[in-house]
């Protein structure tokens, strides 16, 4: 009896041989991906159906769940929304279906270079860029005026930013919690100073470690300066994106580095009466601050790439079609308007509707074009974890010791000679 019920349940799950169902594992959003799934199901004309399943909230936990499923060769994982930093790992482990050259050309056409770079491993495209993200410097015009600084001025640096905030009694929000967001900040500072964390990543645990460099020390000096100044958030060492945002809305709110979703969130909150209605009107934006006045900054790069599971039943047929539908230029635009997450193709930013909805669209486009990806390596989790464990909390960072100690630690962790 129990067996028949169980068997019945199983057949019900597999769809009973009707329309093929593609499972798309998505990162949580405001329903934008679910809408695209519905739209592409419709567009397929009954060939297939896309069903979405939501992954956990933060990037690390999303990866954990995907890795567990993929390591178990889950054939029900057709499409996945992957954080760009994990593409190399999944590709190297054989978890993703690579796109043949012919297909790859279509998926990368007109796409921002950092997004393509992040979706490629050992010369092959393993994921289709879907949306791209970057951070801007968001600030309140009144605070900048009070501080006597112009964040839009060419050559505007972190030092000027921190000094200005300290002078005017305002704050500079950043992500200092021990998680990916802090790694984003560290990487952007090092890249903006002209350095990088590791290179020759394809050598795996023999990669060259470059964090102990003048650029690494400059990055450490900026983090230390902010963390130990009165412009820091009192909870900097546990702040994530949303804490930085509420700091900006608070009584000492001034400046913060944060992703593009802020624009939507602030306007939404003002409309709902959560924050003062005057705040969005006072809000302005500028490019990610520089480390050196004479050197362009390299803003962080983020977003989502779509991977096709290597063990899926429809990996060579419907999954590819579905990914093509989801990542079409017009769906990228639709998703940007629905969710506030920036498209991965530059052309979208010239659309009048987008320009109206996102007054900073041009700046976002330029920032993504210039963005520096985090290290592209199959051991990304180890590299990131090793950096974070030596650079956290931000106030403990010391340019004289932290970069050197973290370089040594990354090497040990990569060789399984240290716990993380």
């Amino acid at each position, binding site marked *: 009896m129990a067996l028949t019920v169980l068997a019945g349940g199983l057949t019900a799950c597999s769809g009973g041989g009707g329309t093929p169902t593609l499972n798309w594992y998505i990162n949580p959003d405001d329903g934008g991906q679910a809408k695209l799934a519905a739209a592409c199901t419709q567009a397929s004309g009954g060939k297939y159906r896309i069903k979405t399943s939501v992954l956990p909230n933060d990037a*690390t936990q999303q990866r*954990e769940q995907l*890795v567990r499923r993929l*390591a178990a060769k889950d054939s029900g994982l057709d499409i996945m929304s992957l954080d760009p930093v994990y593409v190399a*790992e*999944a590709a*190297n*482990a*054989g*978890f993703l279906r690579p796109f043949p050259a012919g297909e790859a050309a279509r998926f990368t056409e007109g796409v921002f270079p950092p997004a393509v770079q992040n979706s490629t491993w050992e010369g092959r495209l393993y994921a289709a860029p879907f949306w791209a993200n970057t951070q801007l410097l968001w600030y309140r015009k009144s605070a900048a005026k009070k501080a006597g600084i112009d964040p839009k001025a060419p050559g505007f640096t972190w030092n000027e930013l921190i000094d200005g905030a300290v002078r005017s009694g305002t704050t500079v929000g950043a992500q200092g*919690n*021990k*998680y990916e967001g802090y790694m984003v900040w560290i990487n952007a500072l090092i890249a903006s100073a002209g350095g990088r964390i590791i290179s020759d990543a394809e050598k*795996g645990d023999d990669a060259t470690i470059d964090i102990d460099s003048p650029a690494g020390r400059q990055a450490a000096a900026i983090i230390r300066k902010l963390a130990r100044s009165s412009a820091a958030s*009192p*909870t*900097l*060492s*546990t702040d994530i994106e949303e*804490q930085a945002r*509420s700091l900006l809305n608070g009584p000492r709110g001034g400046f913060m580095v944060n992703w593009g979703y802020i624009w939507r969130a602030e306007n939404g909150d003002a409309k709902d009466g959560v924050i003062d209605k005057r705040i969005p009107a006072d809000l302005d934006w500028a490019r990610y601050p520089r480390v050196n006045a004479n050197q362009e900054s390299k803003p962080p790069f983020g977003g989502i790439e779509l991977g096709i599971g290597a063990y899926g039943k429809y990996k060579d047929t419907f999954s590819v079609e579905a990914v093509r539908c989801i990542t079409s230029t017009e769906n990228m635009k639709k998703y940007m308007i629905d969710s506030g997450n920036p498209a991965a193709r530059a052309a979208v930013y010239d659309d009048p509707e987008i320009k109206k909805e996102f007054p900073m669209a041009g700046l976002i486009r330029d920032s993504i074009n210039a963005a520096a990806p985090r290290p592209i390596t*199959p051991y990304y*989790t*180890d590299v990131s*974890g090793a950096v974070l464990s030596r650079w*956290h*909390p931000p106030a403990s960072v010391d340019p004289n010791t932290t970069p050197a100690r973290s370089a040594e630690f990354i090497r040990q962790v990569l060789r*399984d*000679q*240290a*716990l*993380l």
Partner: protein
Amino acid sequence: MTAVHSAPAPGQSRAGRAEISDRSRAERRLGLLLSAPAVLVMLLVTAYPLINALYLSLFSYRITAPDDKRFVGLANYWTALSDPLFWQDVFTTFFITFVTVAVELVIGFGLAMVMHRALFARRTVRTAILLPYGIVTVISAFAWRYAFDLQSGFVNSWFGLGDYAWFSGRWSSLFVIILSEIWKTTPFVSLLLLAGLAQVPRDLGEAATVDGATAWQRLRRVTIPNMKAAILVAVLFRTLDAWRIFDNVFIMTAGQQKTETLSFLTYRQTITRTAIGLGDAVGVLLFLSVVLIAFVFIRGFRVDLSQVRGDR
């Protein structure tokens, strides 16, 4: 219950070992047969994963790089034991365990007395005391985290602490973690102690009163010695429980500010890093530490687990 009846008293068994009657031999065989399926299931669900973990801990092996699996012998154990992080986590775990168990024992005893002595609204008092234990740990951890959070919490405004960031320092984070752990599991301790209190014969206390003993003397000389078994069992259970603390730390600090515990360390090697070999080595060490604690308690303090069941 039959087992209890037929089991000879310790003295008898020693004398009777020389000649076992056919009947008791048959009974013994039947007993073995009857318990065999249970033993098999136990081996399957506990021994197999353990042996598998032992085996995997001898490899350098990552889920995401299955082709690079190679035998490294005991190197993973050496990596773990020679890493300062491991010992830092051992200390953190020990600190949390020691403080929570000590405080819970005192408060738990007080609450047990209240529950034991309550003259009116007995059921309500007991329910109120036991309530925290019924809440899922993850949920209580979230509640405590939000209470102490700078932006959403009320603790700072209640006590006028302004911008004090609880989760930005090691000791203040541990304070909140320990507080929530105590709040959550004291009812468990008091429940075990209440059972112990109920077992202390009333006439012993009355006799002591007649002899002129004060309340404090009755407590120290009569009640507590008679509850020894219950107290030791409560301490043992809570120590083992606290030693593998995970949920509270995971929710409140995610192991930051040096609040990481041994289970969390295992979790991060195995699940986050997917370094199965290294993670299993830490897991095996954690298992050995649990066995050690149980051994020390049961042998060292002569805890008789049968006593709390009332089989005297």
